[in-house]
């Protein structure tokens, strides 16, 4: 969706401001939001793509005015409500007023570190050959889906080159909305800075995005 999350190339946000000796978390509640988001994702009630979709579908003014973990919290509350795991009233009260809905699994502290140090790969086995080859000229489609997508606006309609074939991965555009994994070829596509930004682009500069096959057409 063309939401506030799609920030590449935007002006007016000011300088980058690194924090000296930055802690991992800035408040105790951030720790709990971070961990709750991961633990609730582990239940299988939704997936990572769905979480990204929930965050970017916050109203743009709210998204831009919120801190990172405030965005995570608002999206988590929305996902809990949308999936029927609890009602907004229950969340406001902090107490259950209806029975729990079954979930596929609950994250336990036992074996947790090994599980997270193993990870959750989203690569899948290819079922068809890749459409494009390294070196192919491609155009990022001028597409504007209202649902989740991972094609940033700043490359849409622009001409690039296939730099690498990354493999077959879960397709976020359907996965985010419960419409299946639809394993899809993924490519690294390079765009020259001049192609993306015209005369203001850094001469010789290159920007790459990881683009799924349906995002691309032959140039």
């Amino acid at each position, binding site marked *: 969706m063309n939401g506030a999350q799609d920030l*590449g190339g935007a002006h007016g946000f000011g300088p980058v401001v690194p924090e000296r000796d930055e802690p991992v978390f800035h408040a105790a509640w951030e720790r709990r939001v971070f961990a709750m988001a991961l633990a609730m994702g582990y239940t299988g009630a939704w997936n990572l793509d769905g979480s990204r979709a929930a965050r970017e579908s916050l109203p743009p003014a709210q998204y831009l005015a919120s801190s990172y973990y405030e965005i995570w919290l608002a999206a988590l509350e929305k996902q809990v409500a949308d999936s029927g795991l*609890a009602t907004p009233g229950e969340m406001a009260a902090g107490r259950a007023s209806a029975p729990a809905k079954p979930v596929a699994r609950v994250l336990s502290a036992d074996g947790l570190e090994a599980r997270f140090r193993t*990870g959750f790969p989203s690569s899948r086995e290819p079922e068809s050959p890749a459409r494009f080859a390294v070196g192919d000229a491609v155009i990022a489609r001028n597409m504007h889906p209202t649902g989740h997508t991972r094609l940033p606006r700043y490359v849409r309609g622009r001409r690039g080159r296939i730099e690498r074939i990354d493999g077959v991965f879960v397709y976020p555009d359907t996965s985010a909305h419960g419409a299946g994994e639809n394993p899809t070829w993924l490519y690294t596509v390079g765009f020259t800075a001049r192609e993306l930004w015209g005369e203001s682009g850094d001469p010789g500069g290159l920007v790459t995005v990881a683009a799924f096959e349906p995002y691309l057409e032959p140039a």
Partner: protein
Amino acid sequence: MSHDHAHHDHQHHGSDLSPVEARVRALESLLTEKGYIDPAALDALVELYETKVGPHAGARVVARAWVDPGFRARLLSDATPAIAELGIGGRGGEHMVVVENTSETHNLVVCTLCSCYPWPVLGLPPVWYKAPPYRARAVIDPRGVLAEFGVRLPDTTRIVVWDSTAETRYMVLPMRPAGTEGLSEEDLAALVTRDAMIGTGLPGSVPASPLDSPLEMPA
């Protein structure tokens, strides 16, 4: 970014809590009561990502690549298994790509759409990486962003920006600093900063503002 330093102990009673703290406390109580989450698992997640997973892991990878040409070749051709040789991997790093800085090319990593970042090698991202200024400008004005980090490259150095738009996660392999021929692998790792592995810093260099001090190796 809100920095709630007051009342940040989540064991406090309700009357002491800020609105966001109260909301988070209520949500955790509810999700626990419903049986969707186990607070001990949340504690374990926080401990893992606050105290164990961090850029010291990535620094080990870089130092190994500097001293072992065979490892470096494996790292650049297929990073995930190469990094796993050092016992490093997991959530947010299932599909790693390592990009090498040379005298001709400097690499810079960003996620314009959210906050994708290679957790197993760098830990959780700093606030600036997740905030709009960096996400907006890294792709359109990488030289300006680098200058704010005190990194000034020759005009002839080509900048390649890697926008993390899928589950591929990028880490920069910086150039080994001159004059480090006699250093041990462990001493080399101590020169490798987090920012050097994002591309916003250089290893062992002193930035214009001392925001990115070399990492201490864990005991």
